[in-house]
């Protein structure tokens, strides 16, 4: 990767972080627990990295096993995180 593409990634990092701050400071206290578990689920996006890592397997056993480990863990994080957040939010009802 050259310095130019690095800079572009930093642009995206800066803009997304700032946007994140603006959006999340608006979330009311009522929803802080679902926010916590929901954003935890989003951090499972590393699953994309795990898939790419798995794809490169075959070259090296160590890389392969690491990729598969990452994939299992990230999947737990993603599936579990979204499901539990949904379970929680389903309960927030107005009658």
């Amino acid at each position, binding site marked *: 990767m050259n310095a130019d593409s690095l800079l572009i990634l930093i642009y995206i990092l800066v803009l997304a972080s700032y946007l994140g701050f603006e959006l999340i400071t608006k979330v009311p206290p009522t929803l802080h627990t679902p926010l916590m578990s929901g954003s935890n689920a989003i951090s499972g*996006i590393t699953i994309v990295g795990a898939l790419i890592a798995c794809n490169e397997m075959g*070259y090296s056993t160590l890389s392969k096993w690491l990729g598969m480990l990452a994939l299992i863990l990230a999947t737990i994080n993603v599936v579990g995180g979204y499901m539990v957040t949904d379970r929680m939010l389903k309960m927030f009802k107005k009658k």
Partner: protein
Amino acid sequence: MSILIQVAYLISSILFILGIKKLGKTKSAREGNIYSAVGMLLAIAATLVTLNILSCVEIFVCILIGGAIGLYISQKVEMTKIPEMVALFNGFGGLASFAVALSDYFLKTQSVDTYPDSINAISIIVSVLIGGITFTGSMIAYLKLDGKISGSPITFKGQHPLNLILLIAFIVAGVLAYLNPGDQIFMIGLIVISLLLGILTVIPIGGADMPVVISLLNSYSGMAACATGFILNNNVLIVAGSLVGASGIILTQIMCKAMNRSLTNVLLGGFGQTVSGPAADGPQIVVKEIGVEETAMLFDSVSSVLVVPGYGMAVAQAQHVIRELMEQCEKRNIDFKFAIHPVAGRMPGHMNVLLAEANISYDKLIEMESINDDFPNTDLVLVVGANDVVNPAARTNPQSPIYGMPILNADKAKTVIVCKRSMGKGYAGIENELFGYPNCLMLFGDAKQTITKVVSELKEM
């Protein structure tokens, strides 16, 4: 082809952003979570398309295993155990980023024999550091919260210098690994140090402070995903990682502010359950007790009730029986609402989740700022397992460690009944003079058992 995948990543980034935005309103929160899940699915699907699917049976096996475990945990977990679960998942996420970074490293150094370029190498080192700390730190936090290891702060002499030495060692090894990308010994050193750092930084923190730690580690796991994004030159990882990073930091700040402590104070450890010494106790607090029957009679005679739930309600799992109490009161046309402190319990928004679980409509749950002026006009306040969040010392006593923390003005009501097991202290480990106030009555006992009795008395009336 590749451009289509990039477009899919762009759309999933937008879905994450919209999801977080919608998560900010009670009405659309569930939809927001679904948006974000669809974004995730799209990112996964787009990535799968690039892979040579047939040769990758392992991938599907891994996804099936992971998915099954995730599904199982998410359906089994009790709502009171959410902090533990977030800690666990968070650790998994951190370990995944850590493993992805290492997989890329070993691939490049061992097999392909193209050394990672310098930006790549730095990203890998950062990802290993943050991922490693997130993993072991979250695991310790999980074990502490779950009571598998003692929640009390584990401190020893030379702890802080040791951490400092480890950090320096990490930097040195990092520079060496950067300069000699082919030499795996430095990378292994980095791995060991980062895992150790995670353990050593969380071990000295008291069990009750774990929610702050978890929220901070949640933010780290986002940053680890970001770092992975830099390794793989992948935008969706960066966008999603940044959102998580921001969310973790903000929640951490909110908790610290509400506890009136700085983040450094929390992280340096040794606080938590140890502070509460009998030293310099003021005059002994003299309390008035009330029994279950009198309580039921009082409920029968008032026209407005505010319930202040706290950590004890979560421990006792008393939310369902409180709903029954609410139904009894509403039958009698008593105005019945809940006053929710933002950090009652052990997680931000903890009480809202529990009361929602008990099927209580969210418009009955009023936030602190909106309800605080209503206390003086309220006949009866029932404090269930809350302590610090109604401690008037935060308003009146500049010497108190919680002075300045915003609290619920329960003491201003006509009558206050406090339901807890004993004169035990709360999270902050300090006395609560409210219990001795003339308008305050203590209803001792486990919250669930006591209130069940009150409800059955009320039913008979």
